């Protein structure tokens, strides 16, 4: 398949990854090469094959809907790049 640089740029935005022009050009070239590898899958006849999402076919076990963790927000928020009181600080979304 042909993957345009515009498509790579759109995908980078979807993934919220900023890229310079030079980085985008290099990444586009490399991803095109990788897709020549991936495109081998298109030639495989998989009619009637059940997709396998996970090596464990068994059903997920369930747990009781009860609180098992204690409140450790101070410990976790100690890692925050910016915070105020008990809140994470981020730039304004709407001015």
């Amino acid at each position, binding site marked *: 398949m042909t993957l345009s640089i515009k498509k790579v740029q759109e995908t980078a935005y979807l993934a*919220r990854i900023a890229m310079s022009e030079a980085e985008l050009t290099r990444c586009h070239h490399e991803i095109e090469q990788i897709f020549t590898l991936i495109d081998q*899958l298109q030639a*495989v006849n998989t009619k009637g094959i059940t997709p396998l999402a996970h*090596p464990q076919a068994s059903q997920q076990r369930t747990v009781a809907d009860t609180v098992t963790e204690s409140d450790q927000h101070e410990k976790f928020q100690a*890692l925050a790049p910016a915070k105020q009181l008990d809140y994470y600080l981020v*730039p304004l979304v709407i001015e």
Partner: protein
Amino acid sequence: MHFKTLTELKLALHKKEISSHELVSHYLKRIERFNPQLNTFITVTGESALQEAQKADDLRARDPENAPPLLGLPMAHKDLFCTDGVKTSCGSKMLDNFIAPYDATVVTKCRDAGLITLGKTNMDEFAMGSSNENSFYGPVANPWNTEYVPGGSSGGSAAAVAAGLVPVSTGTDTGGSIRQPAALCGITGLKPTYGRVSRYGMTAFASSLDQGGPFGKSAEDVALLLNAMAGFDERDSTSLNVPAEDYTQHLNRSIAGLKIGLPKEYFKNMNAPMQKALDEALKVLEKLGATLVDISLPHADLAIPTYYVLAPAECSSNLSRFDGVRFGYRCENPRDLNDLYLRSRGEGFGTEVKRRILIGTYVLSAGYYEAYYLQAQKTRQLIKQDFDDAFKNVDVIASPTTPTPAFKIGEKVSDPVTMYQCDIYTLALNLAGLPGLSMPAGFIDGLPVGLQLMGHYMQESKLLNIAHQYQCHSDWHSQHPTAME
């Protein structure tokens, strides 16, 4: 002392030939001496290790009967296992400032078994790589020749054991990241059955493929560490609820009568020195009574394309949590929230990680999901069925772990497709969720090569049994790099 196995060191501690404090001090000195040239450790926790060693010696003196099985023995963790109060970087700028607020289950279990952590080892960023050149902290060197890569992504853990900086270490394997560096560094490494080892606190790359496992100089050491690491964990929804095993129990069992399958797809196009090394290793297994059987895994060629759809898809989802808001790297002076996300992720992730996130985002996006992601899930089923069929006729499958020995640092870094071929023999096992082991099987031009043993579900003991019997009749595993003495 530093090239002794964990088993030998355990005995030396038990006989009081050495104290844990002396042992830990010795390894810390070696890390200080060799880490500048090997770059195996991102963080060294020397002070706490010495304190724990003193406690271990006190406990052994006070109550030797109730000492945990691996009391006072040193180890290291790959830097994607969370360690409470200690930096857990995943080899990424994104987490360079991240001090984990809790321990991974593997870390807790190793501590409960008495092991002492000397530090956190270098790795490819978020476990994405086959050469350990994708780390924010720089490449790791192979102890057998420091111009060469140690393999990846658990390259720091493997190189540290090979260089005698720790006797054992932990790694993770999403597409070969334990077995491939074990082969390239001349040590033994095991990727357990998916679900054997808890993933709680093990930073996720591709959740349906990731599995933690042990590195050691010998199969016996790997069995001892797996005893500590494995077991059911309520905190991991994919943890297998099966009874605990003693993986050392069957090490000395005869392997006479076992059928070892040799998949023709894994032996084609092999270079002559690699073929020679593997043939000699297989002859040893034959002499021990195993039968070699030619088999076929007809969809083996689909492993690389299938993996490079599914692993990036899962990675793009898992790594969306790194957004510069709650923890990790945040860009300077973001204009708005979108700019914060875009630049924090653009500046915080390295090239390979960004490339894989983009591939994953693309194959999961509207219009491409069926053609790529769903199709790869179907080819994954075909690959798994190949193994199911093969294990109806053989006990284990043997193959090369890698197509070649280690390559030079920088040789493949600008060509991702060539780099991805390094994992050609290891990826399929992760897609099927099966256990696999790599053990030293010789040298080519002074660089180690590995033989891979693949087993059916929950057959780790069988793999360890075969590897141990092989190691009782060969000495590749007991060789060490003379430059590291």
